[in-house]
Structures are given as C-alpha cells and as structure tokens.
C-alpha cells in the first residue's frame, strides 16, 4: 500500500484539482438561500444585481435597477458612501431583524442580509467575555494539541455544532485532525488524516483569502443572482468574499457523504499561510449568526497567533542551537587540513547540524562519510542524480525514493536526505541522511479512492471509515530550522572553499612574482657580476703583456689573479645555467645518445690530452629529451669521470645503456677516486663538494645541474661509489609514448 503518488495510474490529486478547476467556485452565479444578496453602485445606490429572493424577502421593489436608498436608511447609506471596508450591523425590515454584512468589490458594494436566527441569543456583547477568557487561557500553553483543544472547545461552545475539529496541514496538504470537541452525535475523527484532494488547491486559496465559510444546509437549492453578469464589467459576479456564496455541488455531496448537513470552517492563517482549519459539522441543518461567526473567527485568530508564536519560538530556539553547532564546526574546519578531513574529525557536530544519522561529503568523486550512510557508489549515484536534475543549492526530501526510485534499496539508511551543493561545476555535495521510519497513518477513509468518475461528473468519496496505511521509505521530516542550518552552513562552506581558492590564487601570484624577481636577479647576475671578473682578467693580462720583465713571483701572482677571476666567472655562468634550467622550455625530441656521447667526448678531449684513457662505450638506446640539456648533463658526468680518474693509468671510462619498459637507462662509470657512500646524499646538492678544491677543481654545481636536467625530464639519477674504487652514475629517462620499446 502506498500513499497516493504519481505511482498510481491516475493521480487522484490531479484528478480532483482538475474537477474543481471546472467548478466555478468564485463565480457560482447564486447564493445559499438563508439570506439575500444585493450589489449596489456606491454613489447612486442603484441596485446592480440582486439575488432573486430579494423582492420576496426585503420588499417588492427590491430588484435590479431600483434604488436601495429607502431600504437601507441613512445609517447604511452612510456606510455605503463611506470609505470603510467592511460592515456588520443589524437592520430591522418589516419586523424581521437582519444582520447586514457588507464588503466592497470592483463590481460594486456587496450587501448580504441574513435574518437573525431565532435561537441565537448571543450578541457581540455576550461573546466578548468568552473571547477574553480564551485569549487569557491560551497564553502560556506550549503544547499545540492542548492549544487546539481549547480553541475547538470554545468554537463548539459558541456555535453549538455537533463536532468541531482542528486540522493541521502537512507540506503535502494532507490534513491531520489534532483536536476535536464533539457531543457524540457525529463520529470522532481525532487523529485521522484527510488527503489533500479533499480540499483542492483552488479552494485552499479561497480559504486563505476569505477565512470563514458557512453552509447551514447541505441540501439547499441555490438562489440565482440576477442579472447573472455585472452591469459594470459584464462578468459573472465574483463572490470570493461573500458569506452567502453558493458552494460546489461536489462539496455538498462530500458533506452529505460524511453524514453532515451543516458545516462551518474557519481558516487558521499563520504568517498569512493556511496552516490548518477549524472545521465544524452538524448532523442536521444549522445556522450560525454573523456575530457568532465573528466570535469564532476571532477565537481562531487567537489560536493562529498563539500557534505562530509557538512555532516561531520553537524555530528560534532550534536555530540558535544549530547556529552554535554551525559556528563551532566552521571554526574547527577553518583549522583543518582539508574540508573532508575536518568534517570527518568532527562527525558528531557535522551530523548534528541537520539532526542526521549519517553524513557524507563528495568532492571530485571522492567520498568521505560518517555515521549511517549509503555506500560510496550509492552516494555518488545520488550526487549524479542531483547534479543532473536539481538546480537548487540545497535539496531536501524525507522520501528520497520518490525522486530517485533506485534509492529504495537503501531506504533503511537514506530515506531522508538534505544535500548542499558546494560546486557550481562539479557534482560536489555535502549530504545528511535520515533512516526510514515505518509508521502507520490512519486515514479518514481510503485516500486512494477520493473520487469516482462517471461520464458526467466526479463524485467525492463516500466512505470515511478509518483506513490504516503503513507508510514506508519515509524519514522523519527535516525541520525548517535544520534546513536553514544547512543553508547557512553551505554558505559558510562555499566561502571557505572560495577562500582556499583565493589563497591558492594569491600564492600562485606571489610565486609568479618571485619567479620574475628571480629571473631579473639572474639577469643582473649574468650581466653585472661577470663584468668585474672580466675586467680583472683583462687588466691582469694587459699588465702581463706590458711588463715582460716581471719576476716569477709576480708572474705567479698575476696568474693567480687571472685564475681566480676566471673561476669566479665560471661559477657565475654555472649558477646562471642552473637557475635558467628551472624555467627553460624543454624542446624534446628523439636523441641519438651515441652521437651525443661522441660529441661530448670530442669536446672534453682537451682535458686529457696527455693521459691514458680507455673508453668503453656500448651501443646506447635513443633517449627522449632536450638534446642541448642532455648534452650538458652528459658533459658533466663524463668530465667528472675524467676528472676523478686523473691519477689512474689507464683511466677506464665505461658508458653503457639499456632500454627498459617505459624508460631508457644510461650509465657512466669510472675507475677513479670514487666517494664514500655515506655522503651520497650530498653529491647532487648545489656547492656540495666531496673533495678539496685544490685536488679537484670545479664550482660544485655540475652534479646539481645534471640532476636538475634529469629531473626536468621526469627522470631519475643515482650515484654509487666506493672510496678509491671509482664511481658509477646512472640515470633514467621516461620513454615517449610514441617511442618504440627497445
């Protein structure tokens, strides 16, 4: 058994709405027979329209076209011509006391005359103390049902109806009877639910505008209004605010099916929204004087005000509590490593925020969850569904399977869902879950059969016998405070996320700026720092040329000056290369490493002219990289091999390579002085030297530069050595995807 939803072949709500849309409830063309209706032109007092019982009840001359001046007398004429909106006054015509109710419309001033019922002893004066008492007694009642009970008791006391109910509507407009006062003549409906289709949307809107309706006799024959169209605008008379307005035959049938011949209902408006109804019924026809109606209206307003303040109070208390939780959570998040980890670390706070049993966050497809939640895949499925179908920032449901049928399978953990979107572009959400709460709802009659269609018209349901339904796949509904709390939290999160993004952007900006500064710095290093060294060398050379008679010592000093300045110049050049490497664009191509090694060997040939060097060079696989940079790297490695094997005879330098899956590997080995593996970490650092400069010259940048070249290629380099037993440098380069293996 399910509630009437779109799952049923014909949506009963839609069906009734449709039927009722055809019912011209605001322009029925007639009135109920317990009174007389006149429409007057406010200035001339001419009768524009009149119910056809006017002449028989109020006097022979009371017809459309006649003047109402004499009928009304100076008092009423004064009101008609005044600016006052409404009127309630008694008027005696031909020995009969009438209650005259007036209101104004675009189609004229409408006056309704009702003979005062003989049994009605109450006047406003006698009713006033009762209302005063009610107003006093509701103060401080904080239980909604107790409050409603007070109101229905009062209304029954004023009107004498057999049964007075207080309905409250849920968000789907199903009504639940929360209070009842009755004399036992009519069955009790306390606790029963009535489907939304019983009061169609069009009627609900009218109830909001005009809070009170009375039907003294459901078996009445309507009295037409003549002429049918208003002389002012040619349209049927709009009776939205007329108490005598004739009601829909479907509604009368509904009343008769319910076993009630008289009814009155008063709207409970909380913050201008239809919150519920005070609904009165009588088994037999029953009239209620306008004074009594006014009093009931007033009693209902007292109830509505009190409900409003209770709800606001409860809402405010909940908001304050949740806001504190939110503030605490946001403060903790701001110190967290990431949003995800922050939320997970404060699972209790996170779930509390919406009073949930489980929560999850999904960012870039990665899920973190706490408490009772669906699986990661199910959470991703929910996110996809929301991302594609729900444009709102915050999605709320207490029946997820209604939006997402696949959610039935995990209704036990996630029948209720609040999801806050935290990304405009991606399916990123923070979600809160509530489990299914299986509950039994007692309907006043089977809501699945609210209407039966015949060829001509629809009939309301006939049975109001209690009908029990098990409601499944529903969670405890989310309160307004909880939803607002999620909305606030979402805003904070979005700000948080934005802030992080801004921080990142700022960081990037700073990095770019400092990169530019570095570039400018290396430019001036290159340009300005080299110049003095050049000058030193230049002048020293000029001096040497000039003074041919210099002694050996002076010549040695001059040579030292030149060598030092040259070394400093090299240092500047190497440093510059090193800093340029970080930002140099790599022009990667297939590089013939055999050719490259040949070129390097030729270029370093000058370094070992008087030495005995044995070269063992294998066939090398081609590499993928920037040829110029790889040449630089190889030059450094081969120069080092030569340099550190200086004392060997012969020096043996082995260059080998191999293709591996995904990379090519090259190796340069020498039989030189080697190094202590304890210092291997220092080998590739800038200015890190493992030997004294007088033993082996160099700037201490070569290997750092080499490592940087290899790093820039996405490769790796390692060194192995043993003191006095040579060193081996091995580096690997990633293969290009087009590069064939081998």
């Amino acid at each position, binding site marked *: 058994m399910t509630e009437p939803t779109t799952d049923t072949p014909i949506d009963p709500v839609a069906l009734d709405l449709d039927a009722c849309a055809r019912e011209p409830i605001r322009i029925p063309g007639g009135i109920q027979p317990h009174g007389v209706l006149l429409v007057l032109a406010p200035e001339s007092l001419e009768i524009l329209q009149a119910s056809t019982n006017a002449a028989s009840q109020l006097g022979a001359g009371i017809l459309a076209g006649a003047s109402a001046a004499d009928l009304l007398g100076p008092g009423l004429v004064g009101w008609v011509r005044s600016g006052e909106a409404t009127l309630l006054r008694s008027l005696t015509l031909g020995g009969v006391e009438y209650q005259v109710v007036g209101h104004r419309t675009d189609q004229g001033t409408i006056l309704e005359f009702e003979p005062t019922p003989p049994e009605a002893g109450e006047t406003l004066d006698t009713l006033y103390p009762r209302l005063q008492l009610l107003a006093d007694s509701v103060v401080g009642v904080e239980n909604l049902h107790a409050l409603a009970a007070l109101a229905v008791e009062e209304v029954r006391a004023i009107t004498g109806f057999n049964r007075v109910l207080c309905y409250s509507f849920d968000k789907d407009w199903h009504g639940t009877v929360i209070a009842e006062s009755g004399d036992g003549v009519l069955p009790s409906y306390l606790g029963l639910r009535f489907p939304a289709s019983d009061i169609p949307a069009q009627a609900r809107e009218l109830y909001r505008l005009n809070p009170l309706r009375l039907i003294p006799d459901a078996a009445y024959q309507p009295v037409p209004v003549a002429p049918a169209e208003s002389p002012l605008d040619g349209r049927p008379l709009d009776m939205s605010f007329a108490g005598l307005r004739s009601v829909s035959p479907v509604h009368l049938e509904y009343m008769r099916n319910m076993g009630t011949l008289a009814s009155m209902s008063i709207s409970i408006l909380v913050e201008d929204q239809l919150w519920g109804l005070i609904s009165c019924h009588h088994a037999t026809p029953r009239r209620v004087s306008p004074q009594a109606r006014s009093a009931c209206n007033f009693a209902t307003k007292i109830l509505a005000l009190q409900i409003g303040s209770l709800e606001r109070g409860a809402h405010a208390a909940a908001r304050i509590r949740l806001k504190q939780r939110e503030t605490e959570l946001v403060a903790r998040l701001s110190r967290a490593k990431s949003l995800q980890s922050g939320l997970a670390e404060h699972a209790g706070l996170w779930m509390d925020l919406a009073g949930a049993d489980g929560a999850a966050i999904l960012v870039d497809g990665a899920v973190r969850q706490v408490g009772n939640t669906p699986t990661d895949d199910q959470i991703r499925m929910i996110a996809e569904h929301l991302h594609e179908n729900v444009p709102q920032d915050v999605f709320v449901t207490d029946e997820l399977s209604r939006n997402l049928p696949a959610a039935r399978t995990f209704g036990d953990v996630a029948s209720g869902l609040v999801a806050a979107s935290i990304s405009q572009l991606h399916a990123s959400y923070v979600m809160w879950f509530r489990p299914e709460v299986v509950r039994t709802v007692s309907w006043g009659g089977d809501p699945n059969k609210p209407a039966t269609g015949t060829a001509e018209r629809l009939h309301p349901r006939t049975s109001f016998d209690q009908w029990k339904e098990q409601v499944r796949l529903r969670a405890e509904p989310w309160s307004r405070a909880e939803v607002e709390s999620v909305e606030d939290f979402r805003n904070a999160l979005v700000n948080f996320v934005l802030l992080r993004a801004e921080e990142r952007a700022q960081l990037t900006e700073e990095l770019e700026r400092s990169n530019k500064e570095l570039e400018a710095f290396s430019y001036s290093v290159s340009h300005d720092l080299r*110049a003095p060294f*050049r000058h030193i060398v*230049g002048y020293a*050379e*000029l001096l040497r040329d000039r003074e041919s008679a210099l002694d050996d010592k002076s010549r040695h000093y001059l040579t030292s000056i030149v060598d030092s300045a040259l070394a400093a110049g090299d240092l500047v050049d190497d440093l*510059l290369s090193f800093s340029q490497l970080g930002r140099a664009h790599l022009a990667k191509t297939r590089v013939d490493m055999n050719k490259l090694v040949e070129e390097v060997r030729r270029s370093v040939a000058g370094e070992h002219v008087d030495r005995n060097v044995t070269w063992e060079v294998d066939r090398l696989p081609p590499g993928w990289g920037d040829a110029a940079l790889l040449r630089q790297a190889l030059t450094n490695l081969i120069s080092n091999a030569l340099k550190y094997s200086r004392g060997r005879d012969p020096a043996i330098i082995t260059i080998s390579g191999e293709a591996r899956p995904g990379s090519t590997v090259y190796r340069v080995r020498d039989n030189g002085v080697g190094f202590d593996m304890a210092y291997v970490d220092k080998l590739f650092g800038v200015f890190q030297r493992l030997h004294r400069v007088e033993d082996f010259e160099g700037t201490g940048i070569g290997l750092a530069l080499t490592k940087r070249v290899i790093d820039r290629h996405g490769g790796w380099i390692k060194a192995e050595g043993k003191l006095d037993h040579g060193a081996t440098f091995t580096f690997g380069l990633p293969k290009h995807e087009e590069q064939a293996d081998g």
Partner: protein
Amino acid sequence: MADLRPILLVEDNPRDLELTLAALAKCQLANDIVVARDGAEALDYLYARNGFAGRDPGNPAVVLLDLKLPKVDGLQVLETVKQDPMQKHIPVVMLTSSREERDVLRSYEVGVNAFVVKPVDFNAFFEAIQDLGMFWAVLNEPPPRGANGL
C-alpha cells in the same frame, strides 16, 4: 681599402671600453674608432646630428654595440638601424655580458649580424674582438646567411 670607414664602438662601461679599445689596438686595425657612450650618442653619430652634426659623411664599417646602455638601450639602437633603409646594411655586432636567451633571440629577430657574449677570459675576448675587427672592418662584406656570432 684606401678609404677605410671607422668602427663605431658603443660602450658605457669605462673598463669594458678601455679593454675593448686595447683589444682593438692589438689588432692593429687601420680603421678609426668612434666611441659613443650611450644609445642616444650612437644614434647621433649614425644620423650625423647634435654632437656629430659635422662629421665626415658615410656609414661606419661596423657597429660594436653593447646591449645594456643608458638612455637608449642597445636593442633600440639596433631596431632603429635595421628599420632604416639607409642604415640597415651597416653590420651590427652585439656585445653583451648576458647569456640571457631572450636577449639573443630578440637581437636576432631585430636583425643583428653577430652576437658576442663577452667572455670573462680576456684572451678569448681579445680573440673575439680581433676576429670581429678583421671580419667586419677589413673585409667589410655583407654577413653570410645564418651568421650567428663567433
């Protein structure tokens, strides 16, 4: 060869100037050396105006142009020369301390005939200047295609 045109040396740094002049002197070139100390002066000479208003007519055999110069920098001088139909055939050799790629690239884009990074080693510098002098001042032929420095 009878009517040797001068070499225009544009250099702001007095030490570089002295060393360059010494190097050129070692080459024993017969060409006069005209020195301009910034880009504006260089342009004054090239266009025979201001301080050089009354100079002998004719373009220099070669311009040795430092890149970083006060007032009008070397690249701007180069641009001016290479965009002027009357001057664009004058060989311009850019001298610079910088190895900055962008300077080299930019110079070639503008149409430099040769680009020399002043080496720290004076002997290398001397050789470079000597080669330059011989090549541009004595032979004074149009630059071979693709000449990219020495």
